[in-house]
């Protein structure tokens, strides 16, 4: 191949990598139920063997393509997926697609808000702590994050729920909006949704900050000794510029990478947080689906959340290319 402009080569390589991973996820979702022991339709017969009409069973097998050979099943599965057909919820008898459409936006809202808040907080706190290493603020940041980081998100969220309940319910403890509310204006609606977001976002964002702030702090500490920092200081540049333009931008790189690495943790954390605060996102969907072993729903939630994680990773990779000029030519 001739010498191509490098950005497009990088973009193509990224695309190939993510295409491959998406394919792996789809094949996994296809293979999982088939690799598991037992007949996927056994639950129908297990409860009450006489109640199932053989004709109905046959129809179901045809609908899910279970009467074909494995390769044919994969084709059938892909064709259905291509049409956005994710099957029917066993527990609730509605298309899984409708359930996803109702629940996914709330999770994306929760994840987006938590990620934005935690990124700003981790960056600012980490920079400030690393800049003044060993001072009281630094010690507080290190101690608090070490104490909070090992605590699982569901325990952290439960503690926040307790705190919210005990302090007299200043904030709503559950749901995404006030039931049966009539909003006078769109702003009132936004305010209501925001109030319901406060506790869930606090829970998820504090888990994220606890695991990221030390990374920013440590990178900050290690950049302080670099030659370009000494030079910038010798030039007499204002400290604020030094801290954020010179040191901060470098501290940003490992931080951005860690956001990609933690995307899976973020999604799992959102699932837990939602089940604590009855937030109507994917977590609540998962909770109900687990209770009724609603396999099509669980499969679809895994597929959707895996795609969210992959998208986030792709975004991080693209952002990294913009932040670090070295990555563009690499």
């Amino acid at each position, binding site marked *: 191949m001739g010498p191509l402009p490098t950005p497009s080569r990088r973009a193509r390589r990224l695309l190939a990598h993510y295409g491959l991973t998406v394919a792996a996820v789809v094949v996994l979702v296809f293979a999982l139920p088939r690799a598991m022991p037992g007949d996927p339709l056994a639950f129908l017969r297990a409860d009450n063997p006489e109640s199932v009409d053989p004709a109905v069973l046959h129809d179901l097998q045809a609908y899910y393509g279970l009467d074909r050979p494995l390769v044919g099943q994969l084709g059938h599965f892909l064709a259905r997926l291509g049409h956005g057909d994710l099957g029917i919820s066993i527990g609730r008898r509605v298309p899984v697609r409708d359930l996803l459409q109702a629940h996914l936006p709330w999770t994306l809202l929760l994840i987006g808000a938590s990620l934005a808040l935690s990124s700003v907080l981790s960056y600012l706190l980490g920079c400030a702590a690393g800049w003044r290493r060993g001072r009281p603020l630094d010690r507080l940041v290190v101690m608090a994050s*070490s104490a909070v980081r*090992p605590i699982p998100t*569901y325990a952290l969220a439960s*503690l926040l729920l307790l705190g919210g309940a005990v302090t007299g319910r200043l904030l709503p403890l559950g749901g995404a909006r006030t039931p049966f509310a009539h909003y006078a204006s769109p702003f009132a609606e936004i305010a209501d949704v925001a109030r319901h977001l406060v506790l869930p976002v606090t829970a998820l964002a504090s888990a994220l900050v606890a695991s990221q702030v030390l990374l920013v702090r440590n990178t900050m500490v290690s950049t302080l000794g670099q030659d370009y920092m000494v030079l910038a200081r010798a030039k007499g540049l204002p400290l604020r510029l030094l801290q954020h333009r010179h040191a901060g931008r470098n501290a940003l790189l490992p931080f951005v990478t860690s956001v990609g690495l933690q995307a899976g943790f973020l999604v799992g954390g959102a699932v837990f947080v939602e089940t604590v605060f009855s937030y109507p996102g994917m977590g609540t969907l998962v909770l109900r689906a*687990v209770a009724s*072993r609603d396999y099509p729903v669980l499969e679809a*939630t*895994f597929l959707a959340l895996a795609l969210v*994680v992959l998208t986030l990773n792709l975004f991080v990779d693209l952002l990294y290319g913009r932040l670090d000029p070295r990555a563009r030519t690499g």
Partner: protein
Amino acid sequence: MSRRARERRLGPAGLMGAGVVAGFVLLAVAGPALAPYRVTELAGDPLEGPSLHHLFGTNSVGQDLTSQLLAGARASLVIALLAGGGTLLLGALVGAVAGWRGGATDSAVMRVVDVVLVLPPIPLMVVLGASIDPGLVGLSAIIVLVSWPVYARLVRAAVLPLRRRADIRAAVGFGASTGQVLRTHVLPDVGLVLIAGLISAVERAIAIEAGLAFLGLVNPTRASWGSIMRDALDFRGLFLTDSWRWWLLPPVAAVALLLVGLALVGTSVERRLDPRLARHQPVGVDG
């Protein structure tokens, strides 16, 4: 104090963590002898407060929460051994083979690792767990299956540079047996990585087991700290009385305390591993 002895020391924070962990291990081992009731037994009135009969009160159907908390400690210990140990074992084996062999083996293994690492672990384990009987052995298998790549990558990174190291190449060149090379040259360097990895894998496994129970993936005949929390949160009137104090708070405190204790031990091991890493935590994906 000799250098060796000093290296073996955990430091005050690490010792405190080790004490907490030891306390939980004792409770878990002695659990069946200490527990006054069976986990599912209706041992008292609903929502009894703490008393001499029920140290941690009862839940909304009158089950004794002391017994359930002890069973939860035991579940955590079993998971720590089976899932935590299994995860590190599989991860270390795969990572060591990939790092030692290098070449095509290495890149094939790491490609698999990269794909598994990018999958969201909790939703994946929920899908896997929903189709089996979620006993402790089944859950452990699932946790190992999803978690090993984290540790394969860790161990591979530790083993990879060894192949080029002069002392090891010399030992191999002088005809040292594989066992001898491993014992005298590899283990002293990789040993601490393995211990740090084991602690981290145990932390992760305990957090995940309670988390999956929290989502309802639990065998109804057993108790887990996660399932106690879930029962409490599902009870509509939890905050109408004081019952949250003895029902929701103790399991949350137990899982938090145990994991913070383990993390304290882990941090002091890591600090000895590389003093430059002091207090730096690797990016984790634990539940």
